[in-house]
C-alpha cells in the first residue's frame, strides 16, 4: 500500500519564477494538507483541501495557491518566488478530518536562488 507520494524530491528555482509541487495521498485518504518547513524549524500549515475545495488556510500570502483533483491528488503552486520560500514542503493526507493523525510524504526540498 503506497503511502503519500510527493514530486519532485528536489527543485532549484530562480527568484521571481513560479513552481508547482505535486502530491498523491495515501490510498483511502481524501484530505490533503500542505506544510512548509524551514530549516531547523517545525512545519507551518499552508492550507488543506477536501472535496476539491480549500477548507482551511494558514498565514501564507496569496502567492501560495493549491488545487485538489477528483482522484484526491493535489498541487501546491507558488508564484513570484522569494528567497525566503526556500524550504521543505510536506504533503500530509488523512481520511476526513484527520483526527487520528496524518500520513506525511517525504517532502519536496525547494531552493530559491
Amino acid at each position, binding site marked *: 500500500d503506497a503511502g503519500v507520494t510527493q514530486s519532485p524530491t528536489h527543485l532549484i528555482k530562480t527568484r521571481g519564477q513560479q513552481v508547482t509541487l505535486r502530491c498523491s495521498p495515501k490510498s483511502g485518504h481524501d484530505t490533503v*494538507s500542505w*506544510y512548509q518547513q524551514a530549516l*531547523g*524549524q*517545525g*512545519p*507551518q*500549515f499552508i492550507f*488543506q483541501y477536501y472535496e476539491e475545495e480549500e477548507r*482551511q488556510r*494558514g498565514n501564507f500570502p496569496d502567492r501560495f495557491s493549491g488545487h485538489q483533483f477528483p482522484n484526491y491528488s493535489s498541487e501546491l503552486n507558488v508564484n513570484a518566488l522569494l528567497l525566503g520560500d526556500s524550504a*521543505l514542503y*510536506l504533503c*500530509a493526507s*488523512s481520511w*476526513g*478530518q*484527520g*483526527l*487520528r*493523525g*496524518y*500520513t*506525511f*510524504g*517525504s*517532502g519536496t*526540498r525547494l531552493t530559491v536562488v
Partner: protein
Amino acid sequence: AQTVTQSQPEMSVQEAETVTLSCTYDTSESNYYLFWYKQPPSRQMILVIRQEAYKQQNATENRFSVNFQKAAKSFSLKISDSQLGDTAMYFCAFMKGDGANSKLTFGKGITLSVRP
C-alpha cells in the same frame, strides 16, 4: 491561537536507556488532540503516538509512552530501551478536536541522538 513549545533543542541518550522529551502547549480549547511525530534524516514525518485530551489515561505504543498533564498543559514523550533507529528530530503537535479546524500546530522540534 494555539502555541506549542519545545524548549530543549537537543538531547542525547545511551542506547538501551530511557529518555524523556518535553512539550508544553497553550490553548483555550477543551477538546483537542496531541501528537508526537518523528522525522528521521529521510525527512518523512512519522506518527509516534497520539493522545485525546478527554482521555485521562496516558497513551502508550510499545516503547513509547506519554505523560499527559492536562491542567499543566504538558505532554512529554518517554522512550524506553532507546535504539539507534530512534535518532531523529521529534515534534510535538496540537490539533483542535472540533473537526472544522484540523490543522496541526507544531513545536520547533528536538534533535535526539542515541549513542551506541
